[in-house]
């Protein structure tokens, strides 16, 4: 009898399938499964207790989780919009530079070259209420004589984190928008001037529609980035004080490792991922709409 053999195309695919299964499919499946269990790292046997949607149900009523969720969404919206405006401004300025454009582009990208952890430390120092540069400067300038509690007050701490986030990543927007500006045909701009546009109208009706797809690409990338914001916040405030700056991933990691409630943390993580997917979808829609508007061939 002829021994049965795997057909060659399946045989050739097998290594890739095995590797993918080992590093993606199985962990994903396990984490999803664990979100339906009360799995605690300290009690491995709880992994086999199926409790259905109880974790998710509990999360629905969990004020702490939803405040972290809301803060993440707020961070996403505010930081992304500010970054886009600033990046657009930077790109327009750099595009104007008649000489030294390369140098400027490189300098502009410096913040991206630092590890987020280092950015966190740097801003933690700058916003420190006693020895920080910001208070020092404000006091030297005579603008205040108080030590402003930048990293302690709820709103100020959130603003401080946002500043750090924006400082480190505005360049992403600037680079994409600059690429758009450089790829943009010049003639429609001149046509707009002849057609009677003021510089602002030229920007509004001609330049911006052309740049929009580029801005949306940056938005998509950055939304994934900010939705998983962790390192800068971990260093600057660690979600504190008293959870005042807690975002999704600081909460998730605290739940998973400090509290050892891995099942619950995984449930949170799946909700967080849904959030990311939602944002990505929105921006992708906008992107393809903007692209077809300018009839982009890419």
């Amino acid at each position, binding site marked *: 009898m002829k021994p049965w053999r795997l057909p060659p195309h399946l045989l050739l695919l097998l290594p890739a399938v095995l590797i993918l299964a080992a590093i993606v499919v199985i962990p994903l499946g396990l984490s999803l499964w664990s979100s339906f269990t009360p799995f605690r790292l300290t009690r491995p046997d709880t992994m086999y207790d199926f409790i259905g949607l109880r974790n998710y149900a509990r999360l629905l009523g969990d004020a702490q989780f939803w405040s972290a969720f809301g803060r993440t969404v707020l961070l996403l919206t505010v930081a992304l919009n500010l970054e886009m405006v600033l990046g657009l401004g930077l790109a327009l300025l750099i595009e104007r530079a008649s000489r030294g454009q390369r140098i400027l582009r490189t300098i502009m990208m410096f913040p991206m070259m630092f590890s987020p952890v280092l950015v966190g430390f740097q801003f933690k120092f700058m916003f420190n209420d006693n020895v920080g540069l910001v208070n020092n400067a404000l006091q030297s300038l005579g603008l205040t004589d108080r030590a402003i509690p930048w990293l302690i007050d709820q709103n100020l701490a959130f603003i401080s984190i946002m500043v750090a986030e924006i400082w480190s990543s505005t360049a992403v927007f600037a680079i994409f928008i600059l690429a758009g500006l450089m790829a943009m*045909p010049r*003639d*429609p701009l*001149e*046509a*707009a*001037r*002849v*057609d*009677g*546009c*003021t510089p602002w*109208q030229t920007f509004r*009706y*001609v330049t911006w*529609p*052309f740049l929009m797809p580029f801005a949306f690409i940056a938005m998509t990338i950055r939304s994934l980035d900010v939705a998983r914001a962790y390192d800068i916040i971990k260093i600057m405030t660690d979600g504190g004080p008293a959870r005042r700056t807690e975002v999704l991933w600081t909460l998730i990691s605290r739940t998973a490792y400090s509290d050892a409630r891995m099942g619950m943390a995984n449930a949170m993580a799946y909700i967080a991922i849904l959030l990311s997917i939602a944002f990505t979808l929105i921006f992708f829609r906008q992107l393809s709409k903007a692209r077809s*508007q*300018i*009839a982009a061939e890419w």
Partner: protein
Amino acid sequence: MADLSLRQLDKKYGSFHAVKGLDLHVEDGEFVALVGPSGCGKSTTLRMIAGLEEISSGDILIGDRVVNDLAPRQRNISMVFQSYALYPHMTVRENMGFTLKIAGRPEAEIETAVADAARALEIEPLLDRRPAQLSGGQRQRVAMGRAIVRNPDVFLFDEPLSNLDAKLRGQMRTEIKRLHARLGSTVVYVTHDQIEAMTLADRIVIMRDGLIEQAGSPDEVFNRPATRFVAGFIGSPPMNMAEGVIQDGLIRFGDGETLPLPAQFRDAVTAGQRVTLGLRPDDIYPVGHGLHAGEAVETRPLEVALTEPLGNETLLFVRFGGVEWTSRMLNPRDLRRGETVDFQIDLSRVHLFDGESGRSLRTA
């Protein structure tokens, strides 16, 4: 509508002097073509009129108004660009109505103006498409429509047909001419194609190195070129040119060959003067195949080096006076390479240019 004046118009880019003191008056309703080789300053001149390029010195007047320091939008001009420069994210309708929308005109007025222009250019079915969905010729029409809608004082065209294929170019040429006849607008039209300039313009301005070589009607620049440059630039195939010296009432060429000095230049030259003789391909032809009944004709047997049959005519290439000459044979008969035929040279139609300055030696 308005007339347009350029007075001592000057443009410098650093040390490069692009336009050197241009003087030009365009009458109300006149169609003027600026032609010249690339880098002659014709596009720069047009862009200065449009206000897209600052002027270094001099004045531009539209009507009675000096517009030197006005932004393009304040000059009431329309421009058709070589690349069409349509707004890619707007439909044809929006493209054409954009200028009126910016001017804050009421919807109804915009709608009527766009509809009128679309009808004139036969692009009504395209109004809701985007530029990317149009062919080159259609985009060209939309670009012209956008210019018409504004009802400007002056139309500016910057090589509008050079991105089209030959057939479409011919078609659009006729279209532009018809449009001008209908609108009676003042037009400045930049092109490097002398045929476009000849067919379209009331007046042709030939530019070179930032200066006007000659300005005149198509007939003038063709039949009475002021300089050797104009003679060589206007006309297709180009005018034959041969260097020579005046000697004993003859023009003696480099290879020793001579032609009698045509009567019309007898008083204009001195013995020993270096000259360039110019002769259009129509004015040298095998006996019996000419365009004109020559008045003062020289006959020479010349060897045909090459033939280019075009159907209704054949171009013949012959060597004479040390250079290659092109001859146009009408009602062509079969001629072979290497055959020697009697060619007639119409001396009454010879052009003579000064060897140094290149200026025409014609006195009257």
